[in-house]
């Protein structure tokens, strides 16, 4: 990357951005159609959307970047062996993911308690542990699924002789957005069912 010309940057970026656009529109439709409707069950759902999808996309990107580096240094071979190193990396990221979503869950509960009297929101206190578990569970699942998709595409891209570093990060962030929104919706629907709100 010695010379930056407008033309070169455009040619490198556009194909990946076109794929990103399709995923972004799918995520957008899910946000506009399904998730906005869920505010009848949980009025603060939109509050956690940016944080929720960002953690998943970031962490799946980290898995992709780490595995790509391992491939280049030769610590992982073309078939992604030894699997022990691969699994260690995944475990590390899932641990980070669980902690980050626990922090998000705690923040969301704090905001619910703080905002409830102001916006006249009635939320059963017995639902707090459930909301916390739902955010953590959905978050870790979303991170795991997106990371797996990132890993599989890293393998495909690496084998085809292209550089995963320029393709995997945009892919994991958009797939992370889509899966993040789907998993938030599932978490809220199930929590609502258990609490008897639906």
């Amino acid at each position: 990357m010695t010379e930056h010309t407008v033309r070169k940057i455009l040619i490198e970026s556009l194909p990946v951005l076109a794929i990103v656009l399709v995923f972004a529109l799918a995520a957008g439709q899910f946000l506009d159609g399904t998730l906005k409707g869920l505010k009848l069950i949980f009025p603060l759902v939109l509050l956690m959307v940016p944080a929720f999808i960002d953690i998943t996309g970031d962490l799946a990107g980290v898995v992709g970047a780490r595995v790509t580096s391992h491939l280049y240094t030769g610590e992982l071979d073309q078939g992604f062996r030894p699997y022990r190193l691969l699994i260690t990396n995944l475990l590390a990221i899932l641990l980070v993911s669980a902690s980050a979503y626990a922090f998000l869950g705690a923040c969301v509960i704090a905001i619910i308690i703080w905002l409830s009297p102001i916006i006249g929101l009635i939320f059963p206190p017995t639902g707090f542990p459930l909301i916390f578990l739902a955010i953590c569970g959905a978050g870790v699942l979303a991170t795991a699924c997106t990371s797996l998709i990132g890993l599989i595409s890293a393998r495909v891209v690496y084998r085809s002789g292209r550089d995963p570093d320029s393709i995997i990060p945009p892919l994991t962030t958009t797939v992370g957005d889509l899966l993040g929104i789907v998993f938030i919706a599932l978490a809220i629907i199930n929590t609502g069912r258990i609490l008897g709100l639906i």
Partner: protein
Amino acid sequence: MAVNGSSPKLIWRVYREAMPVLLFTVLAELFAGTLLLSLDVAYASLIGLFILIPGLMQLRGNISTSLAQRLGSGTHLGTVSWEQGLNKPLRANIKAAFYLVIIMSFCLAIGAWLVSQLIQILAPRSGYLLNLHHFLIIALITALLASTVQVTITVTVALIAHARGLDPDNITIPIVAAIGDIITIACLLLAITLTLSIFPPPLIQI
């Protein structure tokens, strides 16, 4: 990225390096979330508006982040720096970032309009239906405003970090990523208010 020692050591190292930035990001993104919440409260009856949001937030990720990465590489190679100011490679990078923003927000607006029209045929909803020109104007204004702010911050942070002897690769991306969504949603609020006051959308009643 050498791997020495046992698995628990590797896990702990990843954990220690990733957590602080992530916690800061969660707080920043929760602020973006409150803006998103107020956007929904203010424009609850607009159909299709939220289709644009993931795409607009992605523009940040894919354009500012890669600009930050290219500037990081540029400072390492000595082609861009604070002293050299707005030289040719830096101008090419900024120009390319803006071209990408314009092309992508244009495509995003057309895509969002097509999706919203299709959904309205399949499962009609009552409310204010945005037309193609609404999507185009809202997406372009948001993307241009947000990118101007973000590109300015990206370039300034990267060059100052480099001038102070820090590695831009480690600093620029977390900062841009954390504040990017706040800037995007704030600009979106501004763009919608502006667009709808000039072009009121038609009311659809089912």
